[in-house]
């Protein structure tokens, strides 16, 4: 029985604790009394993954078995989550490959001929052929690429359909091929609680026209908790649900397959990253030191390459298939089993180590805007009920925040950083003044459609994701961050953690309560 997550109180027996900071990590001593939230131990993985998938497809929830939905002459579209999850990428074979192979096998045996596989990228960058091949496996790739296996293109006017408008006036515009199919099979990986469910088709296969209804400052600010998709808790998820229900009501049939993973976030060679510090063996300590020193001495290129190659030993904890909402309920239960940690009360200061990877820099660079999004948008929001930090409290993050961008993947980010953030950091002003211009810029659209660039509007969304955290916190301090880049983001910088705590005292008084959110591996703090 794996141990649940728990909250440690730092005392004189507590060793220095590991804190992630971009492409590296440090050991940091915390003041006595600091609360440290640890994720639950990794759940045991399903041994026979193929049997589990087969079982899910043959006895789905709220739907007929998949073979009964497959008929000769039908139009079948299989949509797959892109490689923005899981993080880090999982060791091959990717669970999506295994599911695809089962679905395709069934389709072949049922005489289905018109099969298209689409990577549900929405406004993400197009995945490269190599990335897709790694994700779907050689057999699927060789059979379908490039004509019948492709990235979704949200800017191809001929390939989009306006499904309708929700009762709140939200446009639903999704992939035409998907909308005209007799069946959409959606293959999802549910890394965190805001993934999956109606977000899969209604967001993954949607265009800017549709996405702007929930990816905006107002919705983000009114989402009490992104990680709590129950109705009324997350405005963004509620919007996706309305859209999903409209899609279902308009007769588009979706067979949803969702998977959940355990917490084996780092490979066994870096096993100490998955362990609690006082349980490190002498070997773990030596390895940690050696890896850290090696990492510090390595040239930046080598370091990035080493981190890029990290593959997680994720094990599958559940696979469910069938009707979207029924499936998602089970998925969430599985996810909570792995990620939920009960925490009592909020604190004045929240400390987080920002790791090297987020959803939008797989095989890329975590630029300052993505650091903002990963810290204040995602890690800050890994809670239920209320944030770990009190309103007006201080968020301290560890990351070098280098002024560095991937020229191919993030062209609009560069201009956003240089042009927009230089003028204002206020999300509402940015939205009203600049969003439209970036979203419709023909050059960004061209790069999105033909190169491997994120959509022109994507950096705005990143900024909005962090809007709630930014608004909630009284001050945000980056330990060890590049001074100019941090200032451009509108935050403060400290040389050491001690300095950061001193700076925090200006905002929260002389003896603040501190909580360190010890992630990754990921968890959801259930703050009571």
């Amino acid at each position, binding site marked *: 029985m794996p*141990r649940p997550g*728990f*909250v*440690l*109180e*730092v*005392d004189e*027996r*507590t*060793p*220095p604790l590991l804190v992630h900071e971009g492409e590296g990590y440090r*050991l940091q*001593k915390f003041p006595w009394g600091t609360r440290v939230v640890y994720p639950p131990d990794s759940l045991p993985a399903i041994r026979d993954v193929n049997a589990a998938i087969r079982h899910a497809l043959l006895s789905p929830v709220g739907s007929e078995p998949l073979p009964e939905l497959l008929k000769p002459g039908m139009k079948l579209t299989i949509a797959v989550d892109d490689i923005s999850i899981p993080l880090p990428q999982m060791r091959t074979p990717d669970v999506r490959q295994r599911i695809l192979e089962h679905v395709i096998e069934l389709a072949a045996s049922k005489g289905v001929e018109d099969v298209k596989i689409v990577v549900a990228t929405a406004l993400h960058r197009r995945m490269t052929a190599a990335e897709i091949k790694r994700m779907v496996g050689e057999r699927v790739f060789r059979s379908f690429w490039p004509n019948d296996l492709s990235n979704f293109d949200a800017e191809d006017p001929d390939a989009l359909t306006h499904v309708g408008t929700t009762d709140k006036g939200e446009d639903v515009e999704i992939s035409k091929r998907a909308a005209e199919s007799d069946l959409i099979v959606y293959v999802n990986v549910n890394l965190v609680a805001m993934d999956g469910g109606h977000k899969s088709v209604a967001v993954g296969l949607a265009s800017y026209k549709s996405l702007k209804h929930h990816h905006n400052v107002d919705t983000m600010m009114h989402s009490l908790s992104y990680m709590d998709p129950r109705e009324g808790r997350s405005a963004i998820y509620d919007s996706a649900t309305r859209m999903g229900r409209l899609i279902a009501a308009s007769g588009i049939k979706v067979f949803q397959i969702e998977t959940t993973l355990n917490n084996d976030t780092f490979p066994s060679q870096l096993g100490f990253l998955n362990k*609690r*510090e*006082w*349980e*490190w063996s*002498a070997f773990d*300590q030596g390895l940690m*030191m050696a890896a850290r*020193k090696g990492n510090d001495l390595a040239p930046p290129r080598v370091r990035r390459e080493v981190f890029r190659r990290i593959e997680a030993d994720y094990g599958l904890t559940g696979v469910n298939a069938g009707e979207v909402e029924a499936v998602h309920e089970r998925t969430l239960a599985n996810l909570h089993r792995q990620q939920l940690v009960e925490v009592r009360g909020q604190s004045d200061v929240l400390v987080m180590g920002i790791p090297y990877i987020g959803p939008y820099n797989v095989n890329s660079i975590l630029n300052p805007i993505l650091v903002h999004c990963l810290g204040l948008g995602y890690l800050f929001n890994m809670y239920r009920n209320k944030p770990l930090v009190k309103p007006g409290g201080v968020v301290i993050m560890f990351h070098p925040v280098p002024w560095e961008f991937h020229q191919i993947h993030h062209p609009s980010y560069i201009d956003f950083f240089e042009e927009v953030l230089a003028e204002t950091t206020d999300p509402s002003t940015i939205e009203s003044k600049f969003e439209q211009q970036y979203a419709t810029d023909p050059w960004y659209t061209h790069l999105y459609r033909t190169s491997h660039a994120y959509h022109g509007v994507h950096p705005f969304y990143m900024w909005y994701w962090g809007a709630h955290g930014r608004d909630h916190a009284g001050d945000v301090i980056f330990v060890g961050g590049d001074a100019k880049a941090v200032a451009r983001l509108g935050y403060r910088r400290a040389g050491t953690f001690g300095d950061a705590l001193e700076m925090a005292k200006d905002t929260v008084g002389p003896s603040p309560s501190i909580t360190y959110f010890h992630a990754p591996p990921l968890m959801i703090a259930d703050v009571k």
Partner: protein
Amino acid sequence: MSGVRDELKEMAKGFRWGRRPLVPRSAEPHVLEKDDAGFPTDWARTDAGVAVRQVLLKGVMKPILANELSMRVHGLDNLGGLEGPVLFFSNHTSHLDATIIMTTLPDEWQAKTAVGAARDYFFDVWWRQAFTALVYGAFPIERGSGSKGVGKARELLDEGWSIVVFPEGTRSPDGHVQRFRHGTARLCLEAGVPAVPIGIRGAFQAMPKGRGWPRPGRPPVSVRYGRPIVPEEGEAHQDFSRRMAQAVAQLHDEDRSTWWDSLRRAERGQTPSLSGPMGPGWLRRWEGSRPVPRRGPERAWE
């Protein structure tokens, strides 16, 4: 380079290198169960290990004891004619006990005897593990886990090794003998080996719990080996455990008075108890730390 040195220093301090690892208090309810593999000790009982141990016991430990304590050893003749394996047991008040027994055993016994040591104490940090295994030929005993904890002891008895066990399970906090745990008696009954009682007096006064070296002034310590007691057919382990405790009490009585007197008192069931006076903690400690007379009982011809 100084950066690396500082970091190592921080690590050494934070992770308590060379000291007993501690779990943060709030994490204690979440401790992982230890795997059974533990620290290997078999190497210490190979021929080479035995040779090194005998050199250390005779060349280092015995001279230290001789220098720091006034030792008196009696009753080794009780081992004459006895064949191993046997189980040695004694009262336990000090870290000196195992050293005293191992250095006073005759050569042929010393070579083939191993000491049972609490796993949670002696097998926590690598250097303590190595020291304990090498000098005492020690093997780990899992305290408080019933018959599971003595698996290694049973294995060694089967292989012909004699073992030293302290049935109280831990050192006495006040010098008096604590309740004997039944595990030792059960082990004896199951393995069918004789148990040799040893009474150690003065070790508490010389080096009680909390001290790392004997008190100055060569405090007197007396060691008495008793007659082996053999489990009887169908004897319950509770009864055998009582007999073991009685044997140790008798040896103490003998040391305090004479062999003859102790025999007669034992016959009448009047052997003084070693469990100490009833009363507050200070009184027990006060009585327990009463100095042992420097010389033995008056001898008939003196």
